[in-house]
């Protein structure tokens, strides 16, 4: 089963089209294993991306080096997955 320990979901706010394109460049790098929950489209729309732990440092450095604003939407995805599983299993025994 896929494990999401350390995976974070970042919310990226691109200031302009050029920054959107910079994020799109990231999308092309398949090794990063990025999973765009909300695709990079245009500056008015937020970009949400799940970043595996191994890619986190590189992605954050890349965004910061291009002055692209981001925040952390989900600190550790596995925690939410575990919580969800616990809720479902608890429901089994209600």
């Amino acid at each position: 089963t896929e494990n999401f320990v350390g995976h974070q979901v970042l919310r990226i706010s691109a200031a302009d089209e050029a920054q959107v394109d910079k994020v799109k460049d990231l999308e092309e790098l398949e090794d990063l294993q990025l999973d765009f929950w909300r695709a990079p489209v245009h500056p008015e729309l937020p970009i949400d991306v799940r970043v595996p732990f191994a890619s986190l440092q590189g992605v954050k450095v890349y965004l910061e080096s291009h002055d692209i604003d981001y925040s952390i939407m989900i600190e550790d995805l596995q925690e939410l997955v575990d919580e969800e599983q616990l809720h479902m299993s608890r429901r089994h025994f209600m």
Partner: protein
Amino acid sequence: PLSIETFNYASYHNLDEIYDFMDLLAAEKPSLVSKIQIGRSYEGRPINILKFSTGGVKRPAIWIDTGIHSREWVTQASGIVFAKKLLDGYGKDASVTSILDHFDIFLEIVTNPDGFAFTHSKNRMWRKTRSINSGSSCVGVDPNRNWDAGFGVAGSSGNPCSETYRGPRANSEPEVKAIVDFVKSHGNIKAFVSIHSYSQLLLYPFGYTSKKAADAQELDALAKKAVDALSSLHGTQYKYGSIITTIYQASGGTIDWTYEQGIKYSYTFELRDTGRYGFMLPASQIIPTAEETWLALKVIMEHTRDHPY
């Protein structure tokens, strides 16, 4: 023993539990609800829909589907609540009763069963189907890029490893083909609502082209009415508009195809939230999300009832 009353609507469920729920529902009121298998998924799972009908032959109909993107769990969970509301509402809720006295309603709760099973067994983040792509190690096709509407133009990917991979050809996915065949054989569907998450949007055609839909003005006005009804319950704010102007160009999409089949009232919802939990929406938000969405769905169904075409 599990029953319609003891079923926990405020929790997420796996595929077997949802299919059991559908059987419970059909057994509860066979005069109103029946389960129809419209096909088999790539991995051989039955593709089941619920039919709510109070009689008549080939009556005009309304179609609602949830879960075409398997990781969007709040949609399948909302579909379960909608089914219960239809079961309970007939004979009690004037609006539901009036709609069902004139229309059949088809509800497909798990539109991507293979993907949904995979989110429970192997990868909670799985979105696509589970079909094998020859020549690639990557699995699955985006079932919302696989329809024969602008198939292959900008707005989908030709890369099997992409989350928006369109597939080798239109309707290549049995999960999509099953609906296409059903819609074509039925021939009298008047409204088609495909429910996704997240972003809190109500969208209408087109996604693959900037060409305006012929009924854009009516669809926009109806979307506003539906969104206002939705917001009235918990204050949840939605945006609305055509797919291409509101989010992005997306080709091969479900409601572009249904609209081009002549189904005027074709809409896509993107349910809660706008980006706190995203696809991991806590189960505590299932009921409020489903309740508010139901108000919007009723507006669309009532409008369809009152504006025959």
